[in-house]
């Protein structure tokens, strides 16, 4: 229990700093920066209190906002995917192999991990870019940014999870 709290706190701080100091400055092809800090949302255990999770994900987004001077854009998007995470997991995993107590992302099959991460990433990125551009006339830019940045984020997230998360 305590161990879990500690590892999640360290992951929180580590991902915010990684996002602010490294990932925000990658600029692949001139403009692509992955938002890989949402890995924290993917990996957060399910049995923990839901309200703690919502508040923590709001703070996660807000810390990234502080570093990248973007108002409340990341906070709004991160909070939203935190809220819809459980329904999406339920839909993807069906009833049979859904284990509340021992939720471990690595224990799932790779196509289910991929589907789960892809859905949440695309929703998150769409909210981020819509709030950032904040105008209907830039709709095509928002869509293209969402698409290309999502590919990059999904790639980084899956690689990060495969490399750094232990398979129990």
């Amino acid at each position, binding site marked *: 229990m305590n161990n879990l709290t500690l590892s999640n706190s360290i992951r929180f701080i580590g991902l915010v*700093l990684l996002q*602010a*100091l490294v990932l*925000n400055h990658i*600029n692949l092809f*001139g*403009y*692509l*920066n992955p938002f890989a800090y949402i890995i924290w949302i993917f990996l957060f255990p399910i049995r923990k209190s*839901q*309200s703690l999770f*919502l*508040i923590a994900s*709001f703070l996660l*987004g*807000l810390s990234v*906002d*502080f*570093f*990248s*001077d*973007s*108002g*409340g*854009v990341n*906070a*709004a998007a991160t*909070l*939203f995917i935190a*809220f819809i995470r459980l329904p999406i997991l339920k839909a993807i995993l069906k009833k049979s192999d859904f284990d509340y107590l021992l939720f471990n992302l690595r224990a799932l099959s790779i196509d289910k991990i991929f589907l789960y991460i892809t859905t949440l990433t695309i929703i998150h990125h769409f909210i981020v870019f819509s*709030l*950032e*551009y*904040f105008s209907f006339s*830039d709709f095509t*830019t928002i869509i293209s940014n969402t698409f290309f940045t999502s590919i990059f984020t999904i790639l980084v997230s899956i690689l990060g999870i495969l490399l750094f998360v232990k398979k129990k």
Partner: protein
Amino acid sequence: MQQIIYFLTKFRYFLLFLVLEIIALAFTIQYHSYHTSKFVNSANFITGGFYNKINSINEFFLLKTENKLLVEENVHLKNLLDKKEINYSYDSYKIIDSSKYFQKYEYSVAKVINNNFTKRNNTLTINKGANTGLTSDLGVINSTGVIGVIKSISSNFSTVLSILNDNSRINVRLKNRNHFGTLIWNGKTHTTTQLIDIPRQAVIKIGDTVITGGKSAIFPEGVNIGVIKDFRFENNQYQQINVLLFNDMSAIGYVQIVRNLQKSEQKKLEQNTANE
């Protein structure tokens, strides 16, 4: 009463979500208006401190480019000095009359510790703040051109509203003519900005230099900005004038902060005139 409590417990996560989301959206809306984004910015102790640390490492790798820029500026200033010398050399004596000299602009130096240029609304963070006498709405330039305007201030750091921002409006004019216009950014690439409000009587050509106009009280007149890259002339109007910036906005090291010493006087006079 019981039903209210039942309702609250049943939807407590949704209500929490709603409250937090509204806070986040309030920050977002604040962020889109120029003058009110005071809370969420990187000009605070923690984020500024981190950027400062990282920058002191990165800076080492940029010494070469920084040196080159300084040498180029030195050459430019030396050329200006020598031009003056010719005029003075005819005089055998010089009278220094302090009432003839006055200072309108004061410059100070700062270092950019965080820079973004790929988003729709870009800002920079610099390592000077209220402790060194900075206030908001001061101009920020470097030796090759305009960077932006100071937005938020903390005691040791400030954020700069880059010219690559939706809220950025800079008064400019053409170097060879006195037609004024406004510089905005459409969010496409960080190398080009757009010029609007140019009167249709103005004759412009590709390659014309664009400099700051003296209309605003923030920048001195004549700071370089860029050259006209291309434009469309339709229905007797200039539609889209693209300006290629002299500055490489992706690599900015040291900047100069411009303080207009006569700004309050000018503002006061303009206000009085408007009220009459």
